[in-house]
C-alpha cells in the first residue's frame, strides 16, 4: 500500500495510519467476557474469488473470536494494492481478503478452525493443506533435480 507507518491500532504506536482498528460493532450473541466478535456470523462470499471456489456458495456462516478488523477507510487502498475482498459481513464489512495471482494467500477475520471437527474437517483447511501438499511436491521435484546435479560433487567432498 506504500504507507510506511501503516499499523494496527492494537499496537498503540501513534501511527497516523491505523489500517486495522477496533471493530465498530459487536456481533450479536457475543460471549460473556469474550471479544466483540465471539460468535457465529452469516457472511457473503464474493463470487469469482478463491474463497468462493473453496466454500462453493455465496452464503456462509463462520465463527469469530476477535476485537479488531480492517479499517474501512482504507478499503480502496487495500484494493488498489491488489488485495481482493473475498467475504463481507451483513453490513458490508471486510471479512476476508486474498491475492488473486498468488498460489494461496487468503486472510480471514473469522476462524474456520473454530468450527472444524475431526468427523467434519473445515473445507478451508482442506483447501489450504491441498495447496501446501502440491507446493511440497513441486518443490521436492525441483529439489531432486538439484540433488542429482550436485551428487558427484558431494561424493568428491566426502571421498
Amino acid at each position, binding site marked *: 500500500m506504500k504507507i510506511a507507518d501503516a499499523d*494496527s491500532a*492494537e*499496537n498503540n504506536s501513534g501511527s497516523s495510519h491505523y489500517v486495522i482498528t477496533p471493530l465498530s460493532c459487536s456481533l450479536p450473541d457475543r460471549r460473556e467476557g469474550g471479544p466483540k466478535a465471539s460468535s457465529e456470523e452469516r457472511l457473503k462470499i464474493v463470487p469469482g474469488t478463491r474463497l468462493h471456489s473453496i466454500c462453493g456458495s455465496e452464503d456462509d456462516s463462520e465463527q469469530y*473470536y*476477535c476485537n*479488531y478488523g480492517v479499517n474501512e477507510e482504507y478499503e480502496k487502498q487495500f484494493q488498489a494494492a491488489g488485495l481482493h475482498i473475498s467475504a463481507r459481513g451483513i453490513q458490508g464489512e471486510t471479512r476476508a481478503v486474498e*491475492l488473486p495471482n*498468488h*498460489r*494461496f*494467500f*487468503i*486472510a*480471514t477475520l*473469522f*476462524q*474456520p*478452525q*473454530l468450527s*472444524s*471437527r*475431526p468427523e*467434519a*474437517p*473445515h473445507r*478451508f*483447511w*482442506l483447501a*489450504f*493443506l*491441498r*495447496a*501446501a*501438499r502440491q*507446493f*511440497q511436491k513441486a*518443490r*521436492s521435484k525441483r529439489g531432486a533435480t538439484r540433488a542429482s546435479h550436485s551428487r558427484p560433487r558431494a561424493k568428491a567432498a566426502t571421498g
Partner: protein
Amino acid sequence: MVSAVRIGIIGDFEPSYHSHFATNAALYDAATRLNVPLMVRWIPTPSLDNADAPKILDSWDGLIAGPGSPYKSFAGMLRGIEFARTRDWPFTGT
C-alpha cells in the same frame, strides 16, 4: 515413504488459547481426511525479526499467521507474511 507436509504457524503459542489449540486441531482434522502425513510447528514471532527469517521460513510447505495478536514481535510477523506474499508461498491468516 511420503514425507510429511510441513506447516509452520507464525505466532506465539499459548496452550490455554482456544484459537491456538483449534488451529492445530483443524490442520490435523484436514490431514486425516486427506490421508496426508502432517507436521505442525509454531514459529515464535521474535525468531523472525532478523535477516535469517527467510532461511527459517523456507523449510515449510505452508505458512499460517496464527491468531492471538498483539504478537511478541509485530516486525517478525510482518516478515513472515511478506515472505509468503512475495515468494508465492501457500499462506493464510485466520
